[in-house]
């Protein structure tokens, strides 16, 4: 049987990844709202790792940091300086720093489980985490706006001052959709789809490698070398994506908060 024909034949041979990848079998508490799957375990792992790293890293902080403390401080400073203080300034930056730091490291580490052997699935590749974080960001910027400009925030956000009133007929729906509808959706989908696609690509490359090496045999094993090389490259690429998405998510949250705080009176 021809291997390529086998790959295209769904009844046997090569099996491509499906969306079921993201719905693994339930391990514990099946049928309750507390079902635990492999992905849930990956998320718990991330929480424990984050706790350990940052607990140990900040346990006995010295004025002149050692290596480990330097790395931890560098990570925290990345969010504090480059995201929070750059966009929000010192005062507001400090208020929203816990939220932004949480978003950054949660997204980063949960993205990284996608390439950790044994988990091989990003904690953010199921909609729960991206959605929760997007809702948190949504609530945060609306809260920031309402607190800073009570009464005028919603009006200014929907009817930007300085626009001639007939234009409000066009501007109002645009602002409504872009600010209050699209923002959380884009935040969720951007992260989710990056992780979903990344995972599917990796699964595709590695199952194909396995298929070429062990099932098709002969010269087609050479294709396997190509696919495993791509798998390796895309694993590195996933690290980049993990960092980038974490940065983008926290940055956009900060930008939304900043826009809400800066709204004209």
């Amino acid at each position: 049987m021809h291997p390529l024909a086998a790959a295209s034949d769904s009844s046997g041979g090569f099996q491509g990844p499906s969306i079921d990848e993201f719905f693994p079998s339930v391990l514990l508490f099946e049928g309750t709202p507390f079902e635990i799957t492999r992905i849930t375990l990956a998320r718990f792992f991330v929480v424990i790792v984050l706790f350990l790293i940052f607990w140990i890293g900040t346990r006995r902080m010295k004025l002149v940091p050692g290596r480990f403390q330097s790395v931890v401080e560098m990570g925290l400073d990345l969010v504090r300086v480059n995201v929070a203080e750059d966009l929000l300034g010192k005062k507001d930056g400090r208020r929203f720093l816990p939220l932004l730091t949480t978003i950054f490291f949660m997204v980063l580490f949960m993205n990284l489980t996608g390439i950790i052997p044994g988990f091989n699935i990003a904690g953010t590749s199921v909609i729960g985490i991206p959605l929760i974080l997007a809702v948190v960001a949504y609530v945060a910027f609306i809260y920031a706006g309402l607190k800073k400009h009570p009464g005028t925030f919603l009006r200014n956000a929907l009817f930007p001052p300085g626009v001639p009133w007939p234009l409000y007929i066009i501007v109002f729906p645009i602002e409504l959709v872009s600010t209050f509808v699209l923002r959380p959706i884009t935040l969720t989908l951007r992260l989710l789809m990056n992780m979903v696609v990344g995972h599917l690509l990796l699964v595709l490359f590695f199952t194909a490698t396995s298929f070429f090496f062990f099932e098709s045999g002969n010269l087609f094993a050479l294709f396997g070398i190509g696919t495993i090389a791509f798998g390796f490259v895309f694993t590195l690429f996933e690290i980049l994506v993990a960092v980038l998405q974490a940065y983008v998510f926290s940055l956009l949250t900060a930008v939304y908060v900043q826009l809400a705080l800066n709204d004209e009176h």
Partner: protein
Amino acid sequence: MNSAQMIVAAGEEHNPLLPATPDLVWGAVCFIAILLIFWRLVLPRMKATLDERAEVIEGGIKKAENAQAEAAAALEEYNKQLADARSEAAKIREQARTDATRIANDVKAQAQTDADRITANATAQIEAERQSALVSLRSEVGSLAIDLASGVIGESLSDDAKASAIVDRFLADLEADEQSKAGK
């Protein structure tokens, strides 16, 4: 049912855009746990360290500024002392010069006085010697002359009154003769 249909069916069953309840429950738990870790534990420690560090750095800067100010003050003090010392030295030099002049003048005056005194003494002594020599010479010359005259005339001029008168007359003649010579 072949596997392709199964995948499609499973895909329809599991919509990746619809969150499952456990997904949200555990996701929220994870979020809250991580939020608490950063909010309550990590960031306060980090802030404390940063504040402490900033304080140390500011303290160091302040200390350096203080040290600089102290150094400047010390330099000023030193310069002032130097200037004082210079003026003091100049004063002392001036004083020394005046003193030297005074001492030299004193010494000169003293020497002059001493010289005058010594000269006066010498003059007085010479005068006294001359007087005494004159007196003794007068008596010597008198007796010599008497002896000589006694020998010449062969008779003793033992009559003192007479001899004295002769001598006195002779001497007076002698003086008168000298005076007349000097008067010429």
